[in-house]
């Protein structure tokens, strides 16, 4: 016969045992609080990359700028990374920013942790892997370390990449029929040499047209420009045949930068203030290997094309958003015999090509995907 004492003791023991077993499932809950926010950090990083153009400081104009990709000389001037071309066009990314951001030779892990992951350095750094692919680029952009099999936070965003370059083509063989001339200076009688200009004009006010959406707008502060003058030899051959002229030489004499002076209503020569150098301007003749050195004349008599490339930012575009600049190419023609007067005896007699939306070709936006993994 069981005593009440035994039953009471056994009941208490059994209850205590049940309570201990009931706390066992709690051992299986992962209570490491740091791992819970990996998804949140991945989401935040992806949002900042795809929807924010970033922030930096431009020493040229002593002001903050969203063109942080142009400030890599002073990394402390880059406050925050961002890949969006504009905050008004989310998910449209800037190709220039992508090229600089994914160049891990320029930045250290610490830079990425501070300027885009916003980790608590040095106490709680995150491991990261950020990658991007898009249709116009065959290889994948990636920074960070390889992703583990489990326990990571993840975010994927769909994007379109804006190739920040535009180009325009001028066919020299058709230039006579086109309305490019700004100064009707014909070749005078009986001369053996003549200088005529071909100018490329950039009107920042026209390019910065606010009625054009940010993802399609040509931006002189961030875009590359290319002007391709084709069929130069064909045009010169045609002039020789049609007008009984004989060129003994056609030389590109020099390239001069002019800026529109609104006060004086004239183009002012910037040669003394602004040095045109091959780092930001490049002129090729007939082949990518033939790069023009801006300090000496060279012959263009047999040039199949002349390609001018300009890197961002265009001169004076940062300080004067509605300014205008003009690059004058001065060509010097030498004739074998005395000429007769007329416009048709040379190729360029003060022709001006205005770089506008109607003439420029912009590459289409390229669809892609950005993935951010944090652990």
């Amino acid at each position: 016969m069981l005593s009440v004492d035994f039953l009471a003791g056994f009941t208490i023991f059994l209850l205590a045992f049940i309570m201990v077993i009931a706390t066992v499932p709690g051992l299986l809950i992962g209570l490491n609080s740091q791992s819970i926010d990996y998804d949140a950090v991945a989401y935040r990083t992806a949002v900042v990359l795809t929807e924010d153009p970033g922030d930096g400081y431009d020493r040229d104009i002593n002001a903050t700028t969203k063109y942080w990709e142009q400030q890599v000389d002073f990394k402390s001037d880059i406050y925050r990374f961002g890949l969006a071309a504009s905050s008004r066009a989310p998910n449209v990314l800037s190709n220039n920013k992508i090229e600089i951001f994914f160049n891990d030779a320029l930045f250290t892990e610490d830079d990425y942790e501070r300027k885009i992951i916003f980790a608590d350095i040095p106490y709680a750094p995150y491991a990261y892997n950020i990658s991007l692919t898009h249709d116009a680029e065959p290889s994948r952009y990636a920074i960070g370390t390889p992703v583990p099999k489990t326990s990571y936070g993840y975010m994927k965003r769909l994007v379109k990449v804006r190739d920040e370059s535009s180009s325009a083509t001028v066919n020299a063989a058709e230039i006579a029929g086109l309305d490019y001339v700004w100064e009707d200076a014909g070749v005078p009688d009986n001369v053996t040499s003549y200088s005529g200009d071909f100018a490329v004009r950039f009107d920042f006010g026209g390019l910065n047209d606010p009625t054009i959406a940010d993802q399609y707008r040509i931006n002189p502060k961030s875009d590359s420009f290319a002007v391709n003058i084709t069929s130069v030899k064909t045009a010169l051959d045609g002039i020789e045949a049609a007008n009984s002229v004989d060129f003994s030489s056609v030389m590109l004499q020099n390239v001069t930068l002019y800026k529109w002076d609104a006060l004086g209503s004239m183009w002012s020569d910037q040669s003394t203030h602004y040095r045109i150098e091959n780092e930001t301007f490049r002129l090729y003749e007939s082949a990518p290997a033939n790069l023009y050195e801006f300090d000496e004349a060279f012959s263009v008599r047999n040039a199949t094309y002349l390609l001018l490339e300009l890197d961002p930012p265009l001169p004076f575009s940062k300080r004067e958003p509605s300014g205008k600049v003009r690059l004058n190419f001065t060509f010097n023609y030498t004739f074998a015999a005395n000429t007769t007067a007329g416009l048709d005896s040379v190729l360029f007699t003060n022709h001006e090509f205005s770089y506008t939306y109607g003439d420029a070709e912009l590459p289409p936006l390229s669809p892609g995907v950005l993935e951010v993994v944090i652990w």
Partner: protein
Amino acid sequence: MVGDDAQLFTIEGFTAGLIMLGALYLVLNTAAVFVPGDTHIPDMQLEQLGNDALAMMDIPAELNGENALKHYIEDNEPFEFHKNLSWSTGYLQRKTDTTVFVPDIRYNATVYYRTTSGGVGSYHFADSDDYSASAGDLVGREPAVLVSRWVKIDNKPTGAPPQMRGNDQVVLLEVLLWRG
């Protein structure tokens, strides 16, 4: 000489103690534990992906270019919509190959419009079951998320229900997404 009467007091004491411990246990056991599954993160990731896909279709590739989403609805091209959204070249299947990717997202798209009498009508636009090799793809294991986008169209789409207005209007494209 030793009686059993005092046992009742002892048992009363034990019972009171057990009741107190039991109450304490119940209180402590109801404390909520924060786990990742509670924050519906996979749902948010899918919803963001769906929103991005519709936004990408709504951005033309070039200045004055064709708006793909408007074209699909206005010209009644559900198959083109399906290809652009759900095929291996489509937006939902884009990846960078840094993580394992499982192509299992299903969808069901509906267009809502204002009727000629002022009410709201809808018609089925496209779904992942329409174009799949195996029928019955409209099943899944997880709850669906809803993404939507307003689309301005210039005229009534071909094959639209008769009560839809004929002039230019704004319709709502709603897409249910889930993992199959």
